């Protein structure tokens, strides 16, 4: 799976790493048990600071997407059974839906867009 980082974007790099790993898991590109690179290896691969990668991993760990241990490294966790999204996710979704409404999309158009995004989620 490719990480595409935009250094001129408004979103901080650690957030971009976190978001793309989450999208990768949702899209099936990263499966439970898959190993993520070490902090050092990903920093070397992407050219970003090790602290930035560490911060992204810390966030993913805190949110329960990954687990890190000394022997196994950093692995993707299974989230099967977690049906209820967190409050932050729901708030974020509400905000995005509001933005789409203000952009002039009606309910049908928004649902159609959501369907397309879900169908095309294999392209993180």
């Amino acid at each position: 799976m490719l990480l595409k980082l935009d250094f001129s974007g408004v979103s901080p790099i650690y957030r971009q790493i976190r978001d793309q790993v989450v999208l990768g898991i949702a899209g099936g590109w990263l499966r439970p048990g898959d190993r993520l690179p070490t902090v050092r290896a990903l920093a070397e691969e992407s050219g970003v600071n090790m602290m930035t990668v560490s911060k992204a991993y810390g966030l993913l760990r805190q949110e329960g997407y990954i687990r890190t241990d000394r022997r196994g490294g950093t692995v993707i966790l299974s989230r099967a059974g977690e049906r209820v999204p967190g409050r932050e996710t729901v708030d974020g979704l509400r905000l995005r839906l509001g933005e789409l409404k203000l952009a002039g999309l009606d309910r049908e158009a928004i649902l159609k867009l959501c369907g397309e995004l879900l169908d095309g989620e294999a392209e993180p």
Partner: protein
Amino acid sequence: MIGRLITWASMLWLVPLMYVFLKNETKFKKNIVVGVTLPYEAREDAQVLAVLAGYRRRLKGVCLALTALGLGCALLPVSFGVTLTIWLIWIDLVVVLPLVPYVRCNRALKRLKAERGWRREGAGLTVADLTAASRPEKHLSFLAFCLPLLVALGPGAWELSRGETVLGLVQLVNPACVVLFWFLYRAAFRRKAEVVDGNEALTGTLTRVRSRAWRRCWLWGAWFMALFALALELTFYRPLPGLVALLVLTAAFTAAMVRLELRLRALQERLTADSGRGFYVDEDDRWLWGMFYCNPDDSRLMVGARVGMNVTMNLARPAGRAVIAVTAVLLAAMPLFGVRIIWEERSPVTLTLESAVLTAAHSGSEYVLALEELDTAQLLEEKPDIRRIAGTGLDTVQKGRYRSEEYGQLTVCLDPRTGPWLLLSDEGGRQYLFGATDPSQTLLVWASLS
């Protein structure tokens, strides 16, 4: 005359080498041509092909002119110092001038890219392959470098064991180089995956072939240094066969390295022959003229070159700028070494005897012998056949540590053109061979000693 021709012959091959590598840049590798990333459709574009043809033509012209200049200069009947100065200026020109058509072509292709709208959305993104980065790193163990290290250590250890300290120390440079090569193999290697597009299998293969070429480059380098030590040892005792062995070895190693690089480039070309149709990586914004990497968002000092196996510095880092600046200054200052040699050539060797101290001097070097330490002295009408161990050996001056079949090791400071020469030995058994440019100085000292 022969020395001058050898000097030129040792570097004339640099022009065809530059030509081959720079011409090779016109082949699409990883969607990059002459340092510009273009989509697949550009490969058959008439304007792109015309720009590339113009580049090849200009490059050929520059390289032919440089070769003609080199051949012409090789025949100039001038002293070694002047030859060396011209030769070093010519090397600077060979390094810089072929890059002029390259930069012009790079800029023309970038303009064309902008005009045609070939700059895709997403260009300028930093792309990292999670899968490749999570694979464990495989390195050659130091043990692989141990055998060449042992071979390289042999001659130096042998010379030291028989009390030849200078020769031993000269020979120890070779094992030091083997250790340096191992260090560079480990430290300078960039493990970044060779991401060209979304094809993970392609990324894996490209990364693997580059890593293999890198490994071979340093391991072969270590073996080269080991064999170099043996050939160098031969030159100490059988100069001509030793020099031939050194030349053959160096030529073979250079040919092997060129072949390794060109084979890697050919593989990169073949493997990415179908890339550039959908998503592809475009980092042109970070490469000045397609050859200097400058990315303030990249924390790395060294990054892999975009094609081939080389590494380069990130100019956005102060250390990167410093390394490039020092390299540029060294290149520009190279001819000054030739000027220094001219000065050495034109300085006379003087011999004086004052306050019971004999001094042989030449352009800042002084060899002093107190008369109270002097044991024997002879005046030689014919200069013994001497071979340099360490020091200067020019048509007008020989100074430093030398060896003679007849007298063994000698400390030498003399003008080989004018005799007679003084052969002296001190109480410690050390021997000296002195001779001034002005023979009357030598004779005056000899008269005082007598």
